[in-house]
């Protein structure tokens, strides 16, 4: 499988047509996610599946639609600069991995310090079966807050660059693929199912793989599908872009707000123990709210990214 991954990477590098390269990137994501599954990193695979294979491909296409399809020839001297940068980075990374313990080595530092605590005590300290979720949302609450803000910032950045969709433009570009009968009916059948699945992933992050990030992306993909098939006017009628942007901000605020509340109740920032009568209940509530905030931000950011890409028109 690693071999296939390598072949794909080389093929991407050699491909002149950007469109074909994007297609191969899709394959690359699928492959690496399958690899994560083999290594038992279920949550990572989940994220890779939703983000890497799906949204990233769609956004790359969006970017491609704004630029040109063919790669421009680069002067040879710049090849060398690029090559040396890549080689140096690669060498640094390999040098870094030399210090790293072998895969699945039980004496690795990660297995000696934090991991036993996370694995053994998370059940009694936090009380939810999926360790990844408890690490993500509770032990490493700050990091996750940071990641959420990054996504939000990315959405703000793209909107800032491409501009907020003026309502008039959306009106003029009404069409979708409604006349495509088969797509229309299949999409109608599948949309409620996709939405339901997203909510399921959102609320079952405590038990199985999943959580706010993945759920947000799946939720957004339902809207993206709707937008693709029924056109921008329909999708902005269902979820007006101002509402979506507000929700993106509100998600971050929920996350931050949970932290502030825990401060006010006398705990540390993002220390959920004080939220409930029992520390465990507090953890539950805290993680639930935080995941909800994450899901909201991710979904809303992705949808507004899609809006921004889909309705931007290059000046000819």
């Amino acid at each position: 499988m690693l071999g296939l991954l390598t072949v794909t990477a080389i093929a991407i590098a050699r491909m002149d047509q950007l469109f074909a390269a994007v297609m191969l990137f899709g394959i690359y994501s699928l492959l690496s996610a399958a690899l994560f599954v083999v290594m038992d990193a279920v949550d990572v695979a989940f994220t890779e599946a939703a983000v890497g294979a799906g949204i990233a491909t769609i956004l790359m296409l969006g970017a491609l639609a704004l630029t040109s399809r063919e790669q421009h020839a680069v002067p040879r001297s710049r090849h060398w600069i690029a090559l040396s940068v890549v080689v140096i980075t690669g060498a640094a990374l390999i040098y870094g991995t030399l210090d790293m313990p072998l895969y699945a080595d039980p004496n690795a530092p990660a297995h000696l310090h934090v991991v036993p605590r996370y694995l053994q005590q998370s059940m009694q300290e936090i009380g939810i079966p999926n360790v990844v979720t408890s690490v993500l949302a509770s032990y490493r609450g700050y990091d996750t807050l940071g990641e959420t803000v990054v996504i939000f910032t990315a959405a703000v950045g793209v909107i800032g660059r491409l501009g907020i969709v003026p309502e008039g433009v959306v009106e003029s570009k009404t069409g979708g693929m409604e006349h495509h009968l088969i797509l229309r009916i299949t999409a109608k059948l599948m949309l409620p199912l996709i939405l339901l699945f997203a909510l399921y992933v959102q609320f079952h992050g405590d038990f199985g793989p999943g959580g706010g990030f993945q759920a947000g992306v799946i939720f957004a993909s339902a809207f993206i599908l709707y937008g693709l098939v029924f056109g921008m006017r329909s999708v902005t009628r269902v979820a007006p872009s101002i509402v979506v942007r507000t929700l993106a901000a509100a998600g971050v605020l929920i996350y931050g707000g949970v932290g502030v509340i825990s401060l006010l109740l006398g705990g540390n920032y993002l220390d959920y123990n004080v939220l409930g009568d029992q520390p465990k209940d507090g953890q539950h509530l805290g993680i639930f709210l935080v995941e909800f905030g994450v899901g909201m931000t991710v979904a809303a950011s992705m949808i507004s990214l899609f809006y921004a890409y889909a309705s931007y028109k290059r000046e000819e």
Partner: protein
Amino acid sequence: MRHSISLFVFSFAVWLLLSGYFESLLLVLGLASCAFVVWIARRQDVVDHEGHPMHLRPMRWILYLIWLIGEIVKSNIDVAKRVWSPKLPISPTLVKVPADSDELRQVIYANSITLTPGTVSIDLTDATITVHALTREGALALETGEMARRVHGVGRAE
């Protein structure tokens, strides 16, 4: 309204199947999620006889599916033989077949054609399906219209 209620019940059944946890908190969340889904689906205007086909006759459906599975198995074996045989005995043919007037049935028909290996519906306009068949025989078999007749039986006449 009928469709909304049916969608709600259907969603909740799916939720229970997916979740497998029967705790009160998750059940309440499930109900809330289903309500939310129905609300969005109504806003998206996908809750109608096309998006939630509850008017099809269930018994006819099952009979049709059994027949279709049989066809799929037969044509799978046929195409597999052709792919493995060294001479690659194919004779690609395009053929236009008429479809039903009802759009939902058109879609069922076109999808059934695509599901059967050896024939792919490549266009659907004005109730006419353009089919690309891997072999002349496949195209001829489709032209007899047996599948079209069976699809017609599935949808209730308006």
